[in-house]
């Protein structure tokens, strides 16, 4: 593939295959493109390959064939994976919060880990917590928060590097419908501000209400790609 032009898609999957073993494939010949500012759901049953798509972008998994492009770069040529990850925010399903640290400390810890100064941490953490609407619980410990609140903290932590891309793997997987919808509203708000959001999910109700682009995967193949949930 030639060097991409500025108007080219932000993310391109070109015949991507991920082979874990002779019998087990994560993806098989997946091709799709995503533009900057898109909000895309990846749906499918467990093992369909939706998490693999996100992990390819964060380099937790490598393609065995085909190419993955991000912002004009072939990710197979990227050597500095930590710097790549600072361009994106990653939201895990299990929140991955530090139980012995308060909400603000959880965000501060991540900032310190990427080399931010104490002064910068003090300045930015309240802003980040306000962006994800959890500032009022800054001094609470994770076990004192609801599942939705914990996920807000995890999303806030994913925003510390001002990422242009947010990858959320089953962000509502552990939440009740009410909290699930609150998290989706938050992700949509971030998307409205310009962040490209990719969500792996099997939460049909949330996907239907959000009514965004949906890529359906099955056994590693893309079997559907609708620009809106309502589209048929």
């Amino acid at each position, binding site marked *: 593939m030639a060097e991409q032009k500025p108007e080219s898609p932000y993310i391109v999957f070109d015949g991507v295959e991920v082979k874990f073993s002779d019998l087990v494939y994560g993806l098989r010949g997946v091709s799709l493109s995503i533009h900057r500012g898109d909000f895309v759901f990846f749906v499918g049953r467990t093992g369909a390959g939706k998490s693999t798509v996100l992990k390819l972008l*964060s380099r937790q998994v490598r393609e065995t064939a085909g190419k993955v492009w991000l912002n004009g770069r072939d990710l197979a040529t990227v050597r500095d994976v*930590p*710097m*790549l*990850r*600072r361009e994106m925010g*990653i939201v*895990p399903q299990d929140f*991955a919060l*530090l139980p012995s640290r308060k909400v603000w400390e959880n965000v501060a*810890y*991540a900032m*310190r*880990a*990427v*080399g*931010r*100064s*104490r002064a910068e941490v003090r300045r930015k953490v309240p802003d980040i917590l306000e962006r994800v609407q959890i500032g009022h619980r800054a001094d609470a410990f994770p076990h004192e928060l609801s599942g939705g609140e914990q996920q807000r903290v995890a999303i806030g*932590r*994913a925003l*510390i*590097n001002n990422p242009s891309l947010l990858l959320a793997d089953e962000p509502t997987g552990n939440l009740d419908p009410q909290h699930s919808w609150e998290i989706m509203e938050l992700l949509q708000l971030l998307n409205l501000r310009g962040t490209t959001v990719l969500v792996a999910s099997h939460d049909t109700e949330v996907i239907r209400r959000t009514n965004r682009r949906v890529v359906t995967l099955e056994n590693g193949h893309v079997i559907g790609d609708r620009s809106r949930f309502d589209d048929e």
Partner: protein
Amino acid sequence: MNRLQFLIGEAWASLTRHKGMTFATITTSAVALFLVGGLAYAYWRIDAYARSLPSRFEMRVFLRDGTTYDQVRETATAIRAIEGVDTVVHIPKDAAWQRFKRDLREAMPEDLGNPLPDAFKVILKDLEESRSVAASIKRLPAVAPNGVNYLSEEHELISHILRLLGWLGLGLFGTLVPTAGILIYIAIRLALHARRREIRIMSLVGATQSTILIPFLIEGTVQGAIGGALATPALYTVYRLFAATVEGLMATVDPSPFPLWPTLALLVVTGGAFGFVCSLVAARRPLREA
């Protein structure tokens, strides 16, 4: 500076999280360094003593009082002719006396005459010939009764002790050092497990591999270095007890002072380097896969 504070903070958190394991690791390292270091020190001192003795291939031959210059020359020629002798060096009585006075100048009375005889330093070609060479020299007329001295038995004894210390050191090195290494390895693996959530978070937000790895290296290095620091006073205490015993048995022996600070530096550096290597082995692969 910010990064350094973060790394040290992480290492400290890891060290204090598993206090029992940290204690076991440090004490095992200390015991290993104490025993191996102590044996190495004993070996070094005995070896130095052995080197200060005349060579195993060397004999001292003392001549009778009043031996003339011609008799000295004839005796030298006769010794050179003996099978197994390599070289013969004459040590004139005056030169020996000057040297003796220089070595013991504070203890020597001013008016004491030279009591030393003329002597030869005889170097042998082959150690196996020492008994026959000694017997041949003793038969020479100018040689004083009991005038042939060589230290084959003393050398044999020291060789035995050095060999024993060598084997003992090797045995302890082969058991204690791997034990300490395995303990540091386990401590780091436990720390990796205990801190898997922090490692995952760091990995997710784009912390570099070195930021994730360095706290574990600091942890292992500190454990080894503290072990070395604790081994030094233990070694010093044993040395003092040993020295006091020797002084009590032989009033004339003044054991040379224990090199406390060099030993401390050596054991701390050795322990630290050992801990660094063990923690690197323990942490590198799991973190690369994280």
